[in-house]
């Protein structure tokens, strides 16, 4: 029965959503909060993980942004278009 397939696929999808958006993030936060570097002068492990995840995406976005010449067409009143990209890059 075809609908049997759809019912099972739907159930698997919900299980994956629960794991991806709720359970794994919750457990990740608990793990991050137990990092002793949060209570000392060290850099927490979550910062290194975020750096590894963010840097390639940021580089790709920055190259595309420069290549697009989008900023040339924006006015100085466009705060989010002209200042926010700079803030993110400075951080």
């Amino acid at each position, binding site marked *: 029965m075809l609908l049997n397939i759809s019912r099972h696929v739907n*159930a698997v999808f919900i299980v994956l959503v629960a794991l991806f958006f*709720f359970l794994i*993030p919750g457990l*990740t936060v608990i793990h991050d909060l137990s990092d002793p570097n949060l209570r000392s002068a060290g850099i927490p492990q979550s910062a290194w993980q975020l750096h590894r995840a963010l840097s390639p995406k940021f580089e790709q976005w920055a190259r595309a942004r420069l290549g697009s010449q989008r900023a040339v067409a924006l006015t100085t009143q466009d705060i989010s278009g002209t200042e926010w990209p700079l803030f993110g890059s400075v951080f």
Partner: protein
Amino acid sequence: MAEMLVTAWPLPDGTRLLPRLFSNAADAPYLGEAGILYNLTRRPAPGVILHTGGSLPLFVLVVLAVQLGLGLLLLTGSIRSLRHWRKHRASLIIARPQWQFGLWLGLWLAGLVCLGLGKFSVALLFFVGAQLFPRYEGKPVPPEAAPKS
């Protein structure tokens, strides 16, 4: 610091969900995550004595409870719904099953195409829409089998 970590909502692929959503998707999509990374890597100046906060704030515990609670609700709800379907499949009334399956399949294919094009949020909408199928209802209970009040 704990509030920042819990509200960042870290997904398994490394994305921090809430900072990403609150950044400017068109001009600065990674601003929020870059700001968090900046904060996490600032160290106190040499000689500064650290005063840690002690126990976790209530806010952190509440957000964690909501996060894990919603996840468990979804998980158990999905398993219970599937068990109900398997147990009562024969007694369920399903209108136009081929049409329903076609619609369901169409929504899934549209979602997969959007996923392939990098439109994650649109894909998610199609996948959530597919959850509406199959629509069915239980067979009416004969009067003699209905519970007497």
